[in-house]
């Protein structure tokens, strides 16, 4: 093991021992709210290294997982009703809707394409003017500027066959909603590295003081994650709760003002439903009036589908960090990555997928 990792671990153990001795906590719950953190923690086996009294739990950090089943059902309805080609990221393909999934619809011959960048969808629309193209946009602040760019480009090029179905969500509102829930008892947040690179740390100001919670923006290498856990323990030790950046090579307090302002050139806040968390005011984004001609929800109206979560699926509780994937009766039995029941098992950044892939059998 690297010397640096060993010395951070020693310090974490000392700080934790002291805090437990002083009865600051019996078990400290630290929540990460970024799918890439979830995967990195599981992949490197960070939980095997730190004291058992520090419990790393996963929150609503995976955009695919927090997209409610109703949105999946709606986009499937659109594909069935209108002759349109849908572009989306690979992980969305297998998320189960109430009766079908995008993957199943593709196997039935519907036009659904996986893309790796939103510009693929725009390019396809430009070179196929006779076809209607819908980009199923998903993600937090990290990916929203990319969608904003292509909407602006489509506007400038006066494309009339390109549309965006936005399931975009913004994270700070969700963190506030989560902390207001009395069932949830979190002592520290590992704040997302990529999202914070766009939003900056000021977006979270107020959270540490209001809720008495340590907030540290972390990178993704194991050393950086351990340093961030160490910083959380230091904040608790000193009763000094604030937003601390431990990913200084990428995150600045002011974020990326250019990318951030792009978001609000094109979108405006709207209420949004989150799987597990329900409706959160102002946590979604819809296209501004100027761009409503690109809004797939307006151009391709469908009736509200009767959506229901798969019986017994506890993705909602996993997303809130109330239970661990192992606590779900379906986990690893009827719900596996190749035959997922819930979104958390589908997504490559889902909590259940991370636990299944990296922690089963240990």
């Amino acid at each position: 093991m690297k010397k640096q990792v060993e010395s951070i671990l020693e310090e974490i153990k000392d700080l934790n021992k002291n805090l437990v001795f002083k009865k600051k906590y019996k078990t400290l719950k630290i929540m990460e709210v970024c799918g890439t953190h979830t995967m990195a923690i599981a992949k490197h086996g960070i939980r095997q290294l730190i004291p058992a009294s520090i419990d790393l739990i996963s929150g609503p950090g995976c955009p695919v997982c927090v997209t409610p089943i109703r949105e999946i059902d709606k986009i499937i309805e659109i594909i069935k009703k209108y002759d349109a080609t849908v572009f989306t990221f690979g992980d969305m393909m297998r998320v189960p809707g109430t009766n079908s999934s995008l993957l199943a619809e593709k196997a039935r011959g519907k036009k659904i394409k996986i893309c790796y960048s939103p510009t693929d969808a725009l390019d396809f629309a430009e070179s196929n003017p006779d076809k209607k193209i819908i980009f199923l946009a998903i993600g937090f602040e990290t990916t929203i500027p990319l969608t904003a760019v292509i909407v602006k480009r489509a506007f400038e090029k006066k494309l009339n066959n390109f549309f965006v179905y936005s399931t975009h969500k913004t994270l700070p509102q969700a963190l506030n909603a989560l902390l207001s829930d009395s069932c949830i008892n979190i002592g520290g947040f590992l704040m997302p590295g990529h999202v914070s690179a766009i939003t900056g740390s000021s977006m979270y100001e107020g959270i540490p003081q209001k809720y008495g919670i340590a907030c540290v923006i972390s990178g993704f290498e194991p050393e950086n994650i351990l340093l961030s856990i160490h910083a959380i323990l230091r904040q608790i030790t000193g009763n000094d709760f604030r937003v601390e950046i431990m990913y200084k090579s990428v995150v600045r307090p002011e974020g990326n003002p250019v990318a951030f302002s792009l978001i609000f050139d094109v979108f405006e806040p709207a209420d949004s439903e989150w799987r597990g968390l329900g409706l959160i005011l102002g946590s979604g984004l819809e296209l501004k009036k100027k761009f409503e001609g690109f809004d797939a929800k307006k151009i391709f109206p469908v009736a509200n589908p009767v959506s229901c979560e798969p019986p017994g699926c506890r993705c909602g509780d996993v997303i809130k960090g109330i239970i661990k994937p192992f606590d779900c009766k379906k986990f690893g039995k009827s719900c596996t990555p190749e035959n997922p029941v819930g979104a958390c098992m589908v997504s490559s950044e889902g909590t259940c997928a991370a636990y299944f892939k990296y922690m089963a059998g240990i």
Partner: protein
Amino acid sequence: MKDNKNNSILLSHGDGGVKTGRLISEIIGPALKNNILDRLEDSAIIPCRGAKAAFTTDSFVVSPLFFPGGDIGKLCVCGTINDLVTSGCRPAALSLSFIIEEGLDINVFKKVLESIKNTLEEAGEGIKIVTGDTKVVEKGNADKLFINTSGIGFIEDGPGISPSNIKEGDNIIINGNIADHGICILNCRQEFGFKADIKSDCAPLNSLVKDIKDAAGSGLHALRDATRGGLARVLIELSGSSKMNFDIYQDKIPIQRQTRGICEFLGMDPLYIANEGKMVVFAEEKNSIRILDAMKKNRYGKHSAIIGRVKGIKDKNRNASVTLITELGTKRVLDLHYSEQLPRIC
């Protein structure tokens, strides 16, 4: 199949993961059951007038047809030779069957044939194409060119090479960098626009296997080429069939920096990405260094490394498993339920 509500074949049935396994064990196996097929090895061993022959078949649908380090012609020859040599046989002859889409440029077809010829020369040992077939289908009913090859070889006297011979204490060796083929194909489809110079590892490994056998004597226990499903799939399958636990050391697995970087960027696990020129070797510890030296001297084994060790099973109630020991010293169990779905990479 119980997991398929739609009763249709999905792309994931072809990714080398759990669904592929189920398609074989639940649909194909029961329909065609017999004592040779049921062994599910890369080559079937069939008795042949006192001697033993190894027989295999494979289809190639890679897109694009040409990629850095290879093409569909080179791939079909290498894939079939490599499947044959895992049984320890000397490859003798191959068949070649083309399914061609109407409209294919005849020069493209000629280029593929030229590559097949060159690859046979590269493999040497007098391996020949001895029979073939050509079909042409209407435009749109296939994509440019698909190839099926079968191969036959003869097993010489000597110690048997089979997963069932894997023993506690064996070292696990691989002949170089993993995941280059899958990432090369992804990269040259230009879906991501990476400026990376990654070549497919596509290679005929008969000379490497010959060098391994010569160096190992009776110490060579099993061989398997790590193609679709990557190194992880081979290890998991062989752990299951030999009923042995394997420990694999992550920091010992050879991988190019560029390939690792792209995998990290895309969130893919290089252990599950396809190779087309990688042989996993199980050999007695005392012969391992000699084998490793022989492999490093072969042109297809310069980056060979010992990557793990076979452990016995202490708890008979648990299934055999493959444990990856990470660079931090933590552990994770490799699972077949996971796969990277990359259609048409071979």
